[in-house]
């Protein structure tokens, strides 16, 4: 989330699309309802009428996988009716930058597309730069060469009527939503997996970024783009870089063709290099020196040509190259799509290790109904871990608030805390390599690993936060003493005199105090910042990009709640929140004082996202910062899901995302067509069961509330199939089939898309063959095509057939 849970109370309008917040992020409603009581409007856009829809002022039914068509029409309405915030757009975005002349878009593909490799050369997506390597700026938004003009031209094709044709949202409702959202500010956007689990997931969210920047809704209280994340510590796991592509907190993991820190810096900039040095010092301590590139050579380098995502993992297991898989509190035999293939892949491993609370479908994959354990040669270890009340440590919720949890009780039986298990395994392996001089073993022997048994979690948190390793004198004369804990990102040094395992968490142990333990719940801000309760990254900041809440002179925009401002007498940025500026002492009259989006090389928000590097001096070899560019386009464009019942009406020749590669493993990844599988299936959780259900399906009272999976059908489809609620139906896709009970409702509907009837059905995916409540896994049906940039699977839209099952059971 750019903002936080309690900040939702400050919004005047909510666009909730791709989330059933009322059922799946229940506590968000506490704050949304507060805003609603003060008159805020709630817009809910979803294929299924659910409990979030029921409290919304406007509910719009949308076809799964058609969000870009709808949102582009909203953006188009804002652009063509001048509903955008012109001052904000000119100041805080790249709207005035002059686009590259070679930039273009034709028949569904952007310039630079390689049809054979399904890949873009992104160079034409950037902006023109002058001799100082700074972007050339147009005088007005009407200049046809500028980014804003290109944006307008791109979205002009998305009329409300086109949106209706593609997404099923009636044209008049598209306009009503655009007007309501644009005219009530600040407005916030909430989304969850309904938006990300698509082969256009990144571009779905890009629509939100663009819309919110146009409306001046980023960086302000009550605004933002807020991801309601799926898992309790999915935010923290990402922050800690348990992701193949990152290290030390969202720093790009090095590839084979970046053998030195300098090679890496060429692609990432010196700002991030500094953070990497701090990470390397945390990992390798004394063994990281300027002479040895701070131990950069000790990091394994991934191949830039391979896919290391969880889907690459499954493909590698199936190919027989992945030998040992260690699964820690995850249950892919329920949650991965295309489960039949996942099962075959796991069966080819030499060893599977599952660290868990329960005996799950993954741990016992060899017991899967229909499979023969004798034929599965995989060794399996099941290591009993501890649940949250049985161990201590921090988690980071969606709002980036890092809170400490105390250990209340011991884990049951011989179960151990997961940190103990990981620590013990690492020490064992290190012991096996003791005395080795083989370079391949150097990282294991040279890595820092001295967490004390009695205070494992806090010792690790100290390493994450960072230490002062040699005395440092800061620019303001303040001296940091060796042995101190770093107080924040601003204190981190590029020369190895400080360390921080995850730079965005620098300072959580500032002053030697564990700030995640703070418990002051008084609302001193009056707007729900609760700055003395726990600690939020970065630097206890509550609203990211909050410099954008001010105008060029550093004063809050007239209608915004003041959260930060430039104080002319004290000569510094200050306010209720930690100012999001490169340097709190550099005012609006300096370039630093105008970088509201300082993590972009451009320093401003990017309406069109192309390549850009910033340099301190034009002749410098290494950039300071390098901007990220989505693989599949600089601006969103509607593409159909891999399995779709309709043609792409915008460009029939380019049906799907051009950067998509699917199938990856032809024999195992069939693509169904509407001829055999005429209905669209969307999947999600229910309020009572969570994710794989490994935990919730072992809680009797939750099983009583929702005892089994089901397929929810629109009445018109049910009538055609002569199915009524409680009957058993067989749902099948190109990948598998399951039999479940039917639930016939008005919540699902047959939609009218591109002139044809498209029935949409829904199933929860939380079941499997283990636990107290067992049932078929919906992911036997779903497709494992993934977003080209994020590798998120398209579990929100695939094609199925539904027929009456032979046997029927009596109504419950």
């Amino acid at each position: 989330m750019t903002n936080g849970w309690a900040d939702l109370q400050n919004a005047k309008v909510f666009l909730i699309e791709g989330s059933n917040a009322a059922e799946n992020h229940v506590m968000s409603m506490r704050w949304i309802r507060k805003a609603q009581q003060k008159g805020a409007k709630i817009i809910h856009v979803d294929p299924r009428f659910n409990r979030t829809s029921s409290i919304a002022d406007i509910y719009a039914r949308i076809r799964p996988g058609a969000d870009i068509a709808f949102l582009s029409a909203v953006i188009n309405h804002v652009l063509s009716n001048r509903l955008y915030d012109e001052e904000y757009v000119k100041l805080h975005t790249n709207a005035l930058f002059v686009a590259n002349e070679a930039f273009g878009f034709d028949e569904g593909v952007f310039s630079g597309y390689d049809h054979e490799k399904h890949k873009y050369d992104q160079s034409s997506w950037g902006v023109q730069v002058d001799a100082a390597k700074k972007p050339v700026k147009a005088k007005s938004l009407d200049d046809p060469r500028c980014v804003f003009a290109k944006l307008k031209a791109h979205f002009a094709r998305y009329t409300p009527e086109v949106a209706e044709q593609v997404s099923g949202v009636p044209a008049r409702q598209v306009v009503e939503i655009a007007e309501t959202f644009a005219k009530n500010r600040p407005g916030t956007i909430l989304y969850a997996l309904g938006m990300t689990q698509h082969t256009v997931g990144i571009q779905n969210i890009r629509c939100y970024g663009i819309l919110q920047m146009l409306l001046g809704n980023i960086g302000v209280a009550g605004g933002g783009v807020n991801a309601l994340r799926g898992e309790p510590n999915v935010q923290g796991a990402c922050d800690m870089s348990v992701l193949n592509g990152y290290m030390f907190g969202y720093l790009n993991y090095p590839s084979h063709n970046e053998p030195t820190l300098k090679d890496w810096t060429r692609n990432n900039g010196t700002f991030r290099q500094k953070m990497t040095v701090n990470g390397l010092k945390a990992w390798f301590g004394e063994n990281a020196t300027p002479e040895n590139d701070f131990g950069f050579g000790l990091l394994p380098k991934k191949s830039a040509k391979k896919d290391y995502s969880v889907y690459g993992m499954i493909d590698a297991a199936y190919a027989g190259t992945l030998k040992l898989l260690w699964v820690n509190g995850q249950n892919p035999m329920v949650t991965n799509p295309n489960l039949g293939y996942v099962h075959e892949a796991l069966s080819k491993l030499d060893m599977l290790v599952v660290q868990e609370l329960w005996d799950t479908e993954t741990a016992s994959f060899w017991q899967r109904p229909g499979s023969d354990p004798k034929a599965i040669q995989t060794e399996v270890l099941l290591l009993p871990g501890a649940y949250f009340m049985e161990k201590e440590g921090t988690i980071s919720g969606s709002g980036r608030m890092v809170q400490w949890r105390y250990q209340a009780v011991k884990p049951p039986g011989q179960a151990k805390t997961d940190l103990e298990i990981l620590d013990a395994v690492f020490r064992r392996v290190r012991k096996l390599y003791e005395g080795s001089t083989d370079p391949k073993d150097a990282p294991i022997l040279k890595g820092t690993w001295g967490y004390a048994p009695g205070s494992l979690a806090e010792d690790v948190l100290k390493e994450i936060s960072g230490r002062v390793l040699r005395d440092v004198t800061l620019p303001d004369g303040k001296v940091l003493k060796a042995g101190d804990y770093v107080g924040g990102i601003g204190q981190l040094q590029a020369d190895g005199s400080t360390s921080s395992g995850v730079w965005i968490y620098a300072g959580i142990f500032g002053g030697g105090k564990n700030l995640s333990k703070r418990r002051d719940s008084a609302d001193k801000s009056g707007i729900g910042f609760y700055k003395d309760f726990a600690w939020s990254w970065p630097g206890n900041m509550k609203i990211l990009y909050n410099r954008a809440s001010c105008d060029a002179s550093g004063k809050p925009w007239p209608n915004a709640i003041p959260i930060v401002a430039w104080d002319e007498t004290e000569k510094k940025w200050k306010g209720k929140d930690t100012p999001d500026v490169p340097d709190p002492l550099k005012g609006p009259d300096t370039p630093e004082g105008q970088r509201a989006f300082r993590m972009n090389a451009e320093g401003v928000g990017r309406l069109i996202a192309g390549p850009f590097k910033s340099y301190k001096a034009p002749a410098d070899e290494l950039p300071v910062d390098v901007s990220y560019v989505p693989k599949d386009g600089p601006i969103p464009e509607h593409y159909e899901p891999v399995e779709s019942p309709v043609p792409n009406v915008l460009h029939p020749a380019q049906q799907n995302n051009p950067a998509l590669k699917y199938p990856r493993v032809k024999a195992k990844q069939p693509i169904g067509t509407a001829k055999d599988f005429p209905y669209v299936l969307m999947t999600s959780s229910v309020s009572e069961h969570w994710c794989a259900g490994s935990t919730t399906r072992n809680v009797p009272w939750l099983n009583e509330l929702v005892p089994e999976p089901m397929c929810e059908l629109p009445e018109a489809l049910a009538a055609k199939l002569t199915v009524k609620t409680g009957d058993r139906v067989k749902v099948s896709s190109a990948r598998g089939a399951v039999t479940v009970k039917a639930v016939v409702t008005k919540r699902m509907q047959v939609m009218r898309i591109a002139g044809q009837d498209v029935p949409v059905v829904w199933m929860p995916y939380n079941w499997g063959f283990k636990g107290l409540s067992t049932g078929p896994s919906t992911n036997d049906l779903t497709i494992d095509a993934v977003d080209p940039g994020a590798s998120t699977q398209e579990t929100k839209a695939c094609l199925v057939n539904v027929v009456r099952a032979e046997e029927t059971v009596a109504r419950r």
Partner: protein
Amino acid sequence: MNVSRRGWLKLAAGGTAGLALAELGLGPSEARAATKGLKLEGAKEFTTACNFCSCGCGMVAHVKDGQLVNLEGDPDHVINFGALCSKGAAMKATHDSPQRVRAPRYRAPGSDRWVEISWDEAYEKLAAKLKAVREATWTATEKDQDKDGKEVEYPVNRTDAIGLLGGAQHTNEECYVFNKMGRLFGTSFVEHQARL
């Protein structure tokens, strides 16, 4: 001394957790008076947070004689102020559930059953396998063309045969160590359920 339930929770949960009433500087009689009518008399309190969705609702765990006797919404938590949803409210049942795995288990190749093993055996098997896989699959260099089209042999020092998966159910500290360990072992297959 008159301490309301809410005030009491605040006192007991603030700062260091796990304080019994007597440790709050209240005399025994005052403590008894304060807890009169409370079912959880004498229980120690620990603050924690829910482990289902990413709202991060605060909870208070009550522990008596080492047993978890109650788990409820934390009235002084800035996200939920005491409330919990149906899942969060059901959390207590997970700690002492008979379904929990209580000892390490092993399933041999081709076997149709689990056998319980000791931690020592489990660690031994895993550490030996990690080493064996590294030895058998190590890639020291990777050949590729540089940007001028020249063939280069890059040092890569990795194995693509070990995968680490999971983290969103765990603490930041566990995630950090899991990732660090994986990278030190030499694998790039480090992932978790970020997409679920």
